[in-house]
């Protein structure tokens, strides 16, 4: 069985490798990763996610493993690992709690949530609670600004947070109670489990959770309420049939078309501009 990885203590030797069954398992995973790419070095980022799935951080033995797998030096692997924020240099907590403090979230309340969690947990950025449950991070814009302020737990979305909701969230995490993201799986998985998905090994949870949150659908709802829609295909003369949009001759059987060389002017030059119909994206005010 694999010994639990520990932080490297200066002057002491660190765990230098995986035991044989673990190594066999990791090699099989690594082979599956390498097979995805035309050149094996492309497998490095997913391999480092795989190392984090095993050890909870980019461990010295994980760096050695990745280097051996790809025929690189450990220095080359370390150089890449240190570039990326998600690759951790020391054991991560079971849950990374990230508070977005980029401008939009910060102003909407992210700064307040950050202050609250720092005080509540007694730790700062990239520090972990003594029980190993929570690693706190100031994170940067996570593409959910319409749900600001946002908190991420193991990179699942917790939308429209407040200081109270965020402290309740970390209390649940520390107590081992399951927590459910706003837009995500039914339950937040651990840092190691998450890392395995990022390495490209699905965990079967894709069908859990909502397809879209309310802010994602707000424009669609306005369109429905007003009876607005994009123009239908075929309203403009060239989209109704399944023939090509220009005057090219029939392309023959499927497959042969891929090898066709230019035979008509339309193959190499755009057809003459068609007269523009009225813009269906517009309507008279009040109609």
């Amino acid at each position, binding site marked *: 069985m694999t010994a639990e990885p520990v932080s490297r203590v200066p002057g002491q030797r660190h765990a230098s490798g995986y035991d044989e069954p673990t190594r066999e398992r990791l090699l099989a995973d690594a082979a599956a990763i390498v097979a995805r*790419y*035309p050149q094996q*070095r492309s497998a490095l*980022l997913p391999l480092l996610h795989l190392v984090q799935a095993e050890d909870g951080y980019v461990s010295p033995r994980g760096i050695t493993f990745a280097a051996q797998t*790809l025929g690189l030096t450990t220095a080359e692997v370390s150089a890449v690992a240190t*570039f*990326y*924020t998600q690759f951790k240099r020391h054991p991560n907590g079971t849950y990374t709690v990230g508070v977005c*403090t980029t*401008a*939009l979230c*910060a*102003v909407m*309340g992210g700064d*307040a949530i*950050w202050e609250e969690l*720092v005080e509540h947990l007694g*730790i700062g*950025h990239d520090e972990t609670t003594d029980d190993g449950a929570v690693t706190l991070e100031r994170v*940067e814009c*996570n593409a959910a*600004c319409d749900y*600001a302020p946002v908190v*991420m737990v193991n990179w*699942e979305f917790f939308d429209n947070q407040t200081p109270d909701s965020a402290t309740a969230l970390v209390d649940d995490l520390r107590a081992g109670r399951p927590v459910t*993201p706003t837009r995500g799986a039914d339950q937040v998985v651990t840092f190691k489990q998450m890392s395995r*998905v990022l390495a490209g090994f699905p965990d079967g*949870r*894709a*069908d859990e*959770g909502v397809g*879209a949150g309310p*802010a*994602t659908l*707000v*424009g*669609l709802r306005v*369109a429905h309420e*007003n009876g*607005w*829609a*994009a123009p239908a295909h*075929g309203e403009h003369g*060239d*989209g109704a049939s*399944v023939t*090509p*949009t*220009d005057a090219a001759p029939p392309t023959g059987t*499927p*497959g042969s078309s891929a090898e*066709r060389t230019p035979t008509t002017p339309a*193959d190499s030059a*755009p057809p003459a501009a068609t007269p*523009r*119909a009225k*813009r269906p*994206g*517009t*309507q008279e005010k009040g109609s």
Partner: protein
Amino acid sequence: MATTLTPVLSAHWDADRAWSMASYEASGGYAGLRKALAMAPADLVTTVKDSGLRGRGGAGFPTGMKWSFLSPPDGGPRYLVVNADESEPGTCKDVPLLLASPHALVEGMAITAFAIGCHHAFVYIRGEVLHATRRLQQAVAEAYAAGYLGKDVLGTGFDLELTVHVGAGAYICGEETALLDSLEGLRGQPRLKPPFPAAAGLYARPTTVNNVETIASVPGIVLGGASWFTSMGTERSAGHGLFSLSGHVERPGQYEAPLGITLRELLEMAGGIRKGHQLKFWTPGGSSTPLFTAEHLDVPLDYESVGKAGSMLGTRALQIFDETTSVVRAVTRWLEFYKHESCGKCTPCREGTYWLVAILKRLEGGQGAPGDIELLLDLCDNILGRAFCALGDGATSPVTSAVKYFREEFEAGMHTPADVLFPPENSSLFAYTPRPRAQLAGVHR
């Protein structure tokens, strides 16, 4: 005339299990691929050229032209790489698309790959969006099982592999050449251009790098035709686009509209600025696009009009701030982002963002020195146009535009802290009492 919304990509996001292949096909999904496979690849490129589709990832480069710039076939591989590294502050359109409708991207990729003669395509998705990754992985697996990907796609003899590649937290990897280096297993640093990716991209082979929304728009163009697409939008900024409203608005969210809609029109649909407040400043397309103010409410949000008004359409990420917000505070947070995300390759960006943050922090704290504003502008002048890639250029946008419109707030920063002039509890969406900073343990400021 008032512009109305035109949901295309977002039209089925509210469907039951919208992310599943069954739901996507029920709403007409993969008909575009079937039609495309019966067309000549060159005709597909021409159709996309004629549609006027321009890159939706911010730069706005004409997509069909980008494809036609690929070096001519020489028998070796050609690659399509989709940029799903959505990280520009304010930008939040591709991730919801991938959560709700990942098959739109997969179908668009299959069509694009066929059009450009690519047999192995990649999606580079940022590592910080776990559930979007799950949905994309599943969509790809479903598409393989249904014969839309893999050997002999739909019996046409066309082969296509599609690999989902997950990043690991680096904004710079949204820059297309840094993305390619990262995909090759290196540190994500931008490459010197030329050669451009069209000549020497992934593994030094001809490569096109396109944004998620761009590629997801392709099936509709194939089905509807170029003139269907140009019937929306303006002459030179054709088609539909996702406009992402965030911040101090009543109903923030995704609004899919023809390019050329105005913020005034969008705000009307979004219920306006939050009650009792007024618009102060906003970004038209993410933090790298110069700020706008209330005087720009009627600027048509298309590439040309926004450019003429002194900013950039970018990713249509409309971050909206009301009069309670300190522009110095907002700009400082943005610059902290750029400082952290600077890859370190070039000196103007690496050092420049560091010093910009140092000066902005003392201005935010009310401890600015005389001449600090000139120093900020001088630093920006030494970054803009001298940085290796667009990240450095983009970092100067919030600073120079904020000084241009709100110089007096920076002047106030020489004697009064921003949180005294603009108490943060007035800007937040909930009531709270800010803590004196000295009481905080472990805050890295």
